[in-house]
């Protein structure tokens, strides 16, 4: 899922300083699961904002709403009437949801209430870790199901580099060396010899390096009669 983290309150107050009425908009998708921008967080943030603005002597009126998914235009249609009544929207969705709102409501600003951090997994209470970089050409078949693009600090394909010690990355003792994990996993599976092969240059054009990506599936287009 997409992991996000709420922005510091001061930064949000700064965005909203000129508005009297704001829609605080949560998302029922990933940000609800990672506890950054669901219904509960919308409530907490709204209280914090209301208190801070009252203290400043410039109270703000806040409308609270959480939609099923902000990255879906369909769900945004249902709140068009709410957006019409406010000066601006504060979105607690990921960067995709924030942009979808801005696209759906071009005459109002939708401000980001979170920093979208990465695509990852929940490890423990309050602990998330990156797992995928959406590079567009999955190689997990060759690396024991552990992604070096997302999990090696250098995204190298023939690791581990010389900075790997005791299973940890040179960047931080808190970071596992992805290539040590790959090596150990393949050893466990009896497939470590496959690492003797030199992995070829990666085609980064499938990644962000090829420019903004778009996926078109003609089979679905045909099916829908478009």
């Amino acid at each position, binding site marked *: 899922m997409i992991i996000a983290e709420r922005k510091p309150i001061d930064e949000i107050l700064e965005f909203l300083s000129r508005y009297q009425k704001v829609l605080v908009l949560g998302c029922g998708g990933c940000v609800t699961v990672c506890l950054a921008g669901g219904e509960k967080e919308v409530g907490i943030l709204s209280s914090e904002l209301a208190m801070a603005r009252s203290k400043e002597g410039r109270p703000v009126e806040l409308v609270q709403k959480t939609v099923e998914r902000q990255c879906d235009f369909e769900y945004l249609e249902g709140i068009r009437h709410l957006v019409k009544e406010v000066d601006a929207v504060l979105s607690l969705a990921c960067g995709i949801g924030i942009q979808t709102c801005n696209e759906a409501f071009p005459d109002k600003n939708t401000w980001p209430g979170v920093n979208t951090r990465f695509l990852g997994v929940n490890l423990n209470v309050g602990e998330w870790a990156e797992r995928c970089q959406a590079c567009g050409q999955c190689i997990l078949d060759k690396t024991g199901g552990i992604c070096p693009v997302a999990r090696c600090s250098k995204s190298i394909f*023939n690791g581990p580099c010389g900075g790997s010690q005791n299973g940890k990355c040179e960047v931080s003792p808190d970071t596992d*060396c992805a290539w040590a994990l790959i090596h150990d996993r393949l050893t466990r599976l009896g497939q470590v010899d496959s690492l003797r092969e030199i992995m070829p240059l990666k085609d980064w054009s499938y990644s962000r390096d090829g420019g903004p990506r778009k996926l078109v599936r003609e089979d679905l287009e045909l099916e829908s009669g478009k």
Partner: protein
Amino acid sequence: MKAGSNLERMLESGNFAVTGEIGPPKSCNGEVVRHHARMLKGYCESFNLTDNQTAIVRLSSIAAGKLLLEEGCEPNIQIVCRDRNRIGIQSDVLGAAALGIKNVLCLSGDHQKFGNHPTAKNVYDVDSIQLIKILDGMRNGYFANGEEMKDELPKLYIGCAANPFADPFEFRVTRLEKKADAGADFCQTQCILDMERFERWMELVRARGLHKRIKILAGITPMKSVKAAKYMKKFVAGMMVSDDIIERLEKAEDVKEEGVNIAVEQIQYLKKMEGIAGVHIMAIAWEDIIPEICKRAGLTPRPEV
């Protein structure tokens, strides 16, 4: 001969080779590089010129290499994968070859987190093993995309690094094998401050016959202080410093002198080790000690080949 460099001639003729290392300055003062070149000329076959080591911006390794050539010394330019993509690297290699640079050392590069621009974006379009393969392709007439070069080919003697002190230990030998497979001619190891571990690694290297496929130069770093040794042991990722070295430095009246003694003893020991083709002396921010180490280790004068 692939490139005909001094280093290649020395290694391929079976002589014990000596390489040194010069860290370019954090300025455009080329005189710093020239000064070291003049001081060290004649003591080493070639000198590594580090490529923004520890991710700190410095005078470029290729420019420093050109300064060395002007002083009559042979450069071995380091290229890290951190700062340039395959387009930039190939262009720089062609430029370096046009300037007369023949030795190139391929490295991953320290992560930018350690340097003076920790907020920079890193590149790592290719890794060090892929880089070796690209350079091997170039000297054989092909760009990384497979396109044939129409004109003069770069004459390159290709080096790589090996770190016997990093983990997973046994895989370190496989990684050296991959580098040899990719086309590396020589390898310079991380500095040895734990000889017992190094010997165990060399046993595995010899068991696979790798010393016959790639020339191995053992890394030597004279210790300047107890503090530096302890720091390396504790904080430098992929480094090991044995307790006996720390103990010797602690007991010494003159720590620097003892650091040189250890380096000289290591070189004499390594000279007799099967599969060691030479030494690579990395006197970090202490380049002017290289002549003394070479003299005392019996590495002077350099043979004519």
